[in-house]
């Protein structure tokens, strides 16, 4: 069993591993503070202490699956409300993440089984969900429904994208409708919660899967820690809103180390009678 030393600071405030100054080929683990050679933490980007560094959406697509074939990438976010600074933030996010949106969607193979997949990108405006992210995930569930495919999704998000106002809130209902239809057809949806999964994503498709897996140590919650502290004026318990905490509370089926994830996903799919393609 991996022992995690929880620290009180909000994971959302960290901008990911890239902002920690260290030599090009080295990385400091935010959990055990050991300096590791970047090559040594590969291929899973996990520290020997058990800490899981954040992965980019596309890294996940290639780490756990083969033949990722992207769909719906033509959808691009627009500044519908003329929200101050939104256009610039989109530009910056695109440059930082090399993605057009906070989620990539498509189909992929895992051990010969075809699945519909989505991967959220925390480097893109903290994985926030606006119209395009909601649309891509909705279309993915609709595609999976008409092609009778299981869906495997990886969440990483600060929640709804406030620069799109109420439209972003409506994405929660829109995606939930598509998840429900997929579910009503007897199809399987597995979600893997990754650091961080919060706000409107937690309050919609992150918590609507048949099977909810999580990476160790991931921050998962509805409200932000600072908001809770301000509202309740109470000190938050140790490890609050970490995957291990959520597991204890009964909201996660299983915490899976990255190195075991492919195997676990494969086994779950097989037990649901998903056929291999030849």
């Amino acid at each position: 069993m991996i022992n995690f030393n929880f620290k009180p600071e909000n994971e959302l405030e960290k901008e990911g591993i890239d902002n920690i100054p260290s030599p090009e080929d080295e990385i400091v683990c935010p959990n055990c503070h050991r300096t590791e050679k970047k090559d040594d933490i590969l291929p899973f980007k996990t520290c020997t202490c058990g800490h899981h560094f954040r992965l980019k959406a596309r890294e996940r697509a290639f780490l756990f699956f083969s033949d990722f074939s992207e769909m719906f990438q033509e959808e691009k976010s627009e500044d519908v409300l003329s929200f101050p600074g939104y256009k610039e933030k989109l530009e910056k996010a695109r440059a930082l993440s090399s993605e057009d949106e906070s989620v990539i969607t498509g189909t992929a193979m895992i051990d010969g089984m075809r699945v519909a997949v989505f991967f959220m990108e925390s480097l893109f405006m903290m994985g926030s969900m606006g119209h395009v992210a909601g649309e891509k995930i909705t279309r993915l569930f609709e595609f999976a429904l008409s092609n009778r495919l299981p869906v495997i999704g990886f969440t990483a998000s600060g929640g709804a994208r406030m620069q799109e106002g109420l439209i972003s809130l409506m994405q929660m209902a829109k995606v939930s409708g598509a998840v429900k239809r997929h579910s009503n057809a007897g199809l399987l949806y597995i979600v893997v919660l990754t650091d961080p999964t919060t706000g409107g994503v937690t309050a919609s498709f992150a918590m609507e899967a048949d099977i909810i897996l999580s990476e160790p140590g991931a921050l998962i919650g509805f409200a932000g820690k600072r908001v809770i502290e301000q509202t309740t004026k109470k000190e938050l318990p140790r490890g609050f809103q970490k995957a291990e905490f959520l597991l204890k509370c009964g909201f996660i089926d299983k915490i899976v180390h990255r190195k075991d994830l492919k195997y676990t996903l494969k086994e779950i799919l097989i037990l649901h009678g998903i056929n291999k393609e030849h």
Partner: protein
Amino acid sequence: MNAYEKVRTARSSDRPTALAYINNIFSSFIEFHGDRRAKDDGAIVSGIASLNGMPVTVIAIEKGRTAAERTMRNFGSASPEGYRKALRLMKQAEKFGRPVITFVDTSGAFCGIEAEERGEGEAIAVNLMEMMDLNVPILSVLIGEGGSGGALALAVADRVWMLENAVYSVISPEGCASILFKDSKKAKEAAECLKLTAEDALSFGLIERIIDENALGTEEFFNRLASEIEKEILSIKEDRDYKENRYRRFRAF
């Protein structure tokens, strides 16, 4: 009125709260308590009633009027148990073919340690999914504050109406200002940017109707609203594909 003035009006303690709507619009309201899991959340008032002879299920978020009431109602911020109570009542409505009418007035779902421990996110998520699939007509009226996911969790409906001075937003203007402008005092600017007024929501096609606040809180006001609600429920019922259309309604956003 500018957007932030609307926010302040929507929050005003002078406005009638949900219980006034329930007591004046319906007759023989019987409140049903509890989520049959853990507790009864005072922020959500729910039960069955008659709307001009038509049995309906009513679910509302109540903020409370006096200090004692507000504490009991947790200032209208519902806990997971509240959303689960609402869902229980909706499923009951589905079983007995009763239309569901919700009154929404909340600054947001409760942000507390216990709420997180008991799955605030999960409770809202399940409501969104189940309301999208509920086999009875649903009409939601936003009577004051429509605060983000905590409001949406009772507003996945065939028709969504807002009172003239109600607001509906993904985040509070103060929260938005402190995150985006690093200054919670810029709430006024944030309120403008968020496009959270009833007119905005109507212009984006996110709601179907704005309710005139003329004579707000009087018998005349409630009678007018009661007859509008009754007419609308009957019109949703006439549409055989209302569930499909509810999906399409949200699918379009």
